[in-house]
């Protein structure tokens, strides 16, 4: 085991796969010589050079279009979209082209690519550089959606995404880049489509993703210590494919469920999961289902205002304490 930061785990995940498979190539803005605006790709250009690690102009449609063309013809590209907000600029390539080509061509076209992007807020960048848009991706049939919360998951799931024959959008949380965690030594490949129970408990199941996972864990400690509520925290990790079975089991275990979502309220990822629970676990519920989300409002930039909107450990604690009897 080694202790790595979340950003170091990104580098290691990419490097591990690029060393292993010559078909893996990487393109994006400032990712090469500069090591990425979040310093999440430092050292890759030094190791793999100009041929395999390429800086691009500010051309999101070209970046993803070229990634798709290369993937269709035998390479395994990783494309970076610097801020997940910018997916809106190249959304046609994601949804109309990458997601649908295999289906529309009767299975002829392969698109084994990974789009890595820095998602989420908490760093005071304002409304156009702080969004959590994993739910946008979840809604489009034909792309896999992975959202890790720990360095170990970053490395393992990024490796799995690169090896996956289908297109994957890999959402890294920018506020987590500096966080640290234990990562297994040697080759580390995790499994897409598996959620993880990160804290066992009996009284209420909390479903969370990315930045909301450590906040839910912090709230869970307080809930146990201060009011004796034992929270069962689940890190969803993949939105597509979704580990519905684990979610159902964990809901049946406690009969109570709360989601914690950084995305704005309407059609957030929790809305879909909660609808599955309402349909398939209706007779297992001892409490109405509760979603804790950022309100349906653009994010502000000032410290206090942004912290007010994105669910905090305090808000999670208060909500669970109030709802669970």
């Amino acid at each position, binding site marked *: 085991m080694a202790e790595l930061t979340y950003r170091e785990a990104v580098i290691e995940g990419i490097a591990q796969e690029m060393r292993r498979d010559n078909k893996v190539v990487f393109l994006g803005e400032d990712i090469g010589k500069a090591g990425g605006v979040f310093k999440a790709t430092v050292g890759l250009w030094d190791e793999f050079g100009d041929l395999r690690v390429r800086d691009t102009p500010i051309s999101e449609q070209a970046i993803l279009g070229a990634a798709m063309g290369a993937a269709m013809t035998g390479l395994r590209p990783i494309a970076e979209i610097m801020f997940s907000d910018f997916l809106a600029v190249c959304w046609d390539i994601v949804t109309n082209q990458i997601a649908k080509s295999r289906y529309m061509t009767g299975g002829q076209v392969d698109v084994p690519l990974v789009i890595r992007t820095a998602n989420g807020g908490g760093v005071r960048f304002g409304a156009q550089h702080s969004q959590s848009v994993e739910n946008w991706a979840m809604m489009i049939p034909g792309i896999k959606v992975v959202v890790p919360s720990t360095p170990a998951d970053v490395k393992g799931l990024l490796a799995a995404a690169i090896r996956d024959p289908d297109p994957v959008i890999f959402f890294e949380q920018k506020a987590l880049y500096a966080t640290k965690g234990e990562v297994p030594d040697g080759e580390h490949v995790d499994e897409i489509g598996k959620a993880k129970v990160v804290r066992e408990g009996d009284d209420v199941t909390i479903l969370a993703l990315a930045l909301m996972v450590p906040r839910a864990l912090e709230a869970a400690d307080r809930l146990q210590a201060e009011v004796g509520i034992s929270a069962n925290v689940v890190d969803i990790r993949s939105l597509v494919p979704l580990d519905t079975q684990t979610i159902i089991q964990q809901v049946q275990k406690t*009969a109570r469920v709360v989601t914690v979502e950084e995305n704005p309220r309407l059609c957030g990822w929790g809305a879909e999961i909660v609808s599955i629970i309402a349909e398939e676990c209706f007779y297992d*519920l001892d409490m109405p289902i509760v979603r804790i989300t950022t309100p*349906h409002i653009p994010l502000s930039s000032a410290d206090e205002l942004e912290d007010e909107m994105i669910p905090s450990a305090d808000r999670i604690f208060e909500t669970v304490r109030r709802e669970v009897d």
Partner: protein
Amino acid sequence: MDVIMPQMGETVAEGTLTVWHKKVGDTVSSSDILFEIGTDKVEMEVPAMADGVLAEILVAEGDTVAVGTKLAVIEGTGEAAALSPDAFEPEAPKADPAATPVPVAERPERDRSMKLSPVVRKLLAENNLSHTDVTGTGRDGRIKRGDVLDYMKGGAATVPTAPVPAEAPGAVSAEGITVVPFSYRRKMTAEHMVRSKATSPHVLQAVEVDFSGVNKARQAIGADWKRQEGYSLTFLSFIAKAVCTAIKDFPHINGHIEKDHLVVFDQVNLAIAVDLNFEGLVAPVIRDADLKTVTEIARATNELARRARAGELTPDDMANATYTISNNGSFGTLITAPIINQPQVAILSTDSITKRPMVIEQDGEDLIVIRPVGILAQSFDHRAIDGSYSGAFMRRVKEILEGKNWVESVS
């Protein structure tokens, strides 16, 4: 301020409000006695603990309510310290939670008056319970899932190592006396037994059976069976097979009694009574037992007993029994007069099988031989059949057990 039913003892779950000392509209001060409560142990006067006006009384004198139930509302100016930390919700360290600035449109006011959640409804329905049976310990006295589960278990948390009935919570001990409240299952059994005796005129008939023929088969394959299956091949499966065979000649044994008629079934669904660690009986059913071989019956019996003890029986396992066998053999008893499993016609008890001296006739001479012998006793409902029919059935069962080539049946 809400006035709630305090918890007057660790094991007390409810209390009776015996006397109100104030009425609605009265001004109260925090030290005034507001009401009195009684539990099965104590009676107590309870002060108001707040200054103000008694605005609402929600529970009448003589009512028994759960701990935590809202009894009254005082509209007032000040609040004194809580009576006991457990009785009230802990004060939030920050501002009142209602002030948490979540936009109102996103969190509509939720009505918390007595509502049964889906899981609670499901559990109540599955177990034929009424919500009035169950004490709620959730907010405002709400029945939580755990409350229903606790009620059904009778509160027994551990399986006793020695065969002593588990003591339910709330068992009160005094000098020389222990009161053991009936668990849910005990209550259900009690009701069924009384009802059965009150409905059916029970008559007991017994036969003595020589099990040496059966024993030959048991010895022939017993060791292999034990090794392969993990449990012994007992006499019960053979008895069950004999009963199913005999029923073909005496079909009225295999029926349900309605008010003025007997419903006779072609299908033989044999219920086998299983004891659950002295905590009660269940009788899961082997469907179409007459179509099964001895070994198939043995496996089915074992599986049902396992599921019964693990609490995994499904409603299908319990339904549509047409005849019941109660196996008491392991206790060494001679004979048992079982109580009929309503609405069946009869029930058979098997008791211990022991080596006894028997007289047989051989070549015209009387000989004493040692044989494994046991008594089979059937209680039948005299409304549907008479002693002659039942007796003939029992004779047939004995004939099959003593005469059939059982070694062939199991090979």
